[in-house]
């Protein structure tokens, strides 16, 4: 576009269709980011709540896993939805980030931030850490590929043994800190992006994001900590302990 051309009011292109013009637009891609983020956020909350059953003992947790596997339509439906959401979330992030980086070819020598937060400025990095973690997490506790003591179906054993070995618990803790930053900014941001804003309720967005993020992160962090402090023990050792007590 030449520097002085004043465009005529936009003739909305009827041939490209509203869906493709929406997805090509900045706001459209932001909405994709927000809605897929909402799916992933909802899953993370349910995932954490479901896993709290580890504190009910091996039988309860393994029965929960059996119950989920007994509903293949739900299991695979959720898996497909999560995979599609993750792919679209990353697509939106990459395409928007590229546009954002390209928008300022020459940067400032000096700049001071006033309103932005550490969480908001590190979304890209926390997002990359989470993506790497999700791949690792699936290989570790779902497929067992990188888990030396993996026993298919024995979820309790896999979790407890998994957190007793090597760098796994430390990577897990790091990923949960990244999740905390990513979720806090993401949860209230998605409301802003889809237009949920009102002077009376805006404060609640931050409170809700902080509360739900703290809940999920603390819940998730409790698992490796409980294993490392010996609160959760592997079944074989706990069985031996029970036998010894008799």
């Amino acid at each position: 576009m030449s520097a002085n051309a004043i465009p005529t009011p936009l003739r909305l292109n009827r041939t490209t269709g509203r869906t493709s013009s929406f997805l090509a637009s900045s706001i459209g891609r932001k909405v994709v980011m927000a809605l897929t983020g909402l799916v992933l956020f909802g899953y993370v909350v349910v995932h954490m709540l479901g896993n709290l059953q580890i504190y009910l003992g091996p039988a309860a947790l393994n029965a929960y896993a059996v119950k989920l596997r007994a509903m293949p339509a739900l299991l695979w439906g959720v898996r497909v939805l999560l995979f599609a959401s993750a792919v679209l979330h990353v697509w939106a992030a990459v395409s928007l980030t590229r546009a954002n980086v390209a928008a300022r070819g020459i940067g400032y020598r000096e700049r001071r931030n006033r309103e932005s937060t550490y969480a908001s400025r590190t979304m890209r990095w926390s997002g990359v850490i989470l993506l790497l973690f999700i791949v690792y997490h699936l290989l570790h506790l779902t497929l067992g590929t990188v888990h030396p003591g993996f026993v298919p179906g024995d979820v309790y054993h896999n979790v407890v043994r998994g957190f007793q070995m090597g760098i796994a618990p430390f990577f897990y803790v790091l990923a949960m800190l990244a999740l905390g930053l990513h979720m806090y900014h993401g949860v209230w941001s998605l409301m802003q992006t889809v237009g949920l804003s009102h002077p009376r309720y805006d404060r609640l967005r931050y409170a809700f994001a902080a509360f739900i993020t703290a809940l999920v992160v603390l819940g998730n962090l409790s698992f490796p900590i409980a294993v490392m402090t010996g609160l959760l023990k592997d079944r074989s050792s706990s069985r031996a302990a029970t036998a010894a007590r008799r």
Partner: protein
Amino acid sequence: MNLTLHVWRQKNAAARGRFVTYPASDVSPDMSFLEMLDVVNEALIAGGEDPIAFDHDCREGICGTCGMMIDGQAHGPRRATTACQLHMRTYRDGDEITIEPWRADAFPVVKDLVVDRSAFDRIVAAGGFITARTGSAPDGNAVPVPKAAADLAMDAAACIGCGACVAACPNASAMLFTAAKVSHLGLLPQGQPERHTRVRGMVAQMDAEGFGTCTNHFECEAACPKSISVRFIARMNRDYLVATLADRGEPASAEGGTG
């Protein structure tokens, strides 16, 4: 007081720029930031040098012409203040001040601290006109406007288009500006007929100009000399979503009308 300035100097749009250090001597605390630059320029002119080019017009904080990055902050350190209304009493003797132009590819540097902001004009133009009756002036209050809508529209209309939102945004996004322009007519009854085409047109133009996108840092609101709220961005997003969903995919003018 005496200050040291590090100023971005760039001969023209094609030239490579660089920072040049200038002393600013005997600065009165009552001067505005622009008056301080005027004094520095007088010395430069007296010495046969090219003065520092910067945009300015009203010098009373209402026109939106001035604007520069002062120590990494758009319009300088004071909130809700344009560079022309920033006074030198904000600074202390011996301070060093870094002055840069707005940085965004959609705002190319014309010279020194002057950038070309016509991208903003094209966004406004892309919004089009409102349907208005020609002829004699309408009766006052013929169209009822709710007080709350009038107030909010006025808040949006307070935007002076200075570009500080783009300059302060880590992504060089123009969403606060565009949101203000979308909302200002979109809130009023007179703006309703074109509400959907306006928001889609302005957003399409904003994207085409090469601005970044909002990641909710809210640096724009903090930098805005008129304190335009980021709630207008949420409002624009909402309007854009509704406009897209409501698009019936039909030509604007149906054929076969007999009038």
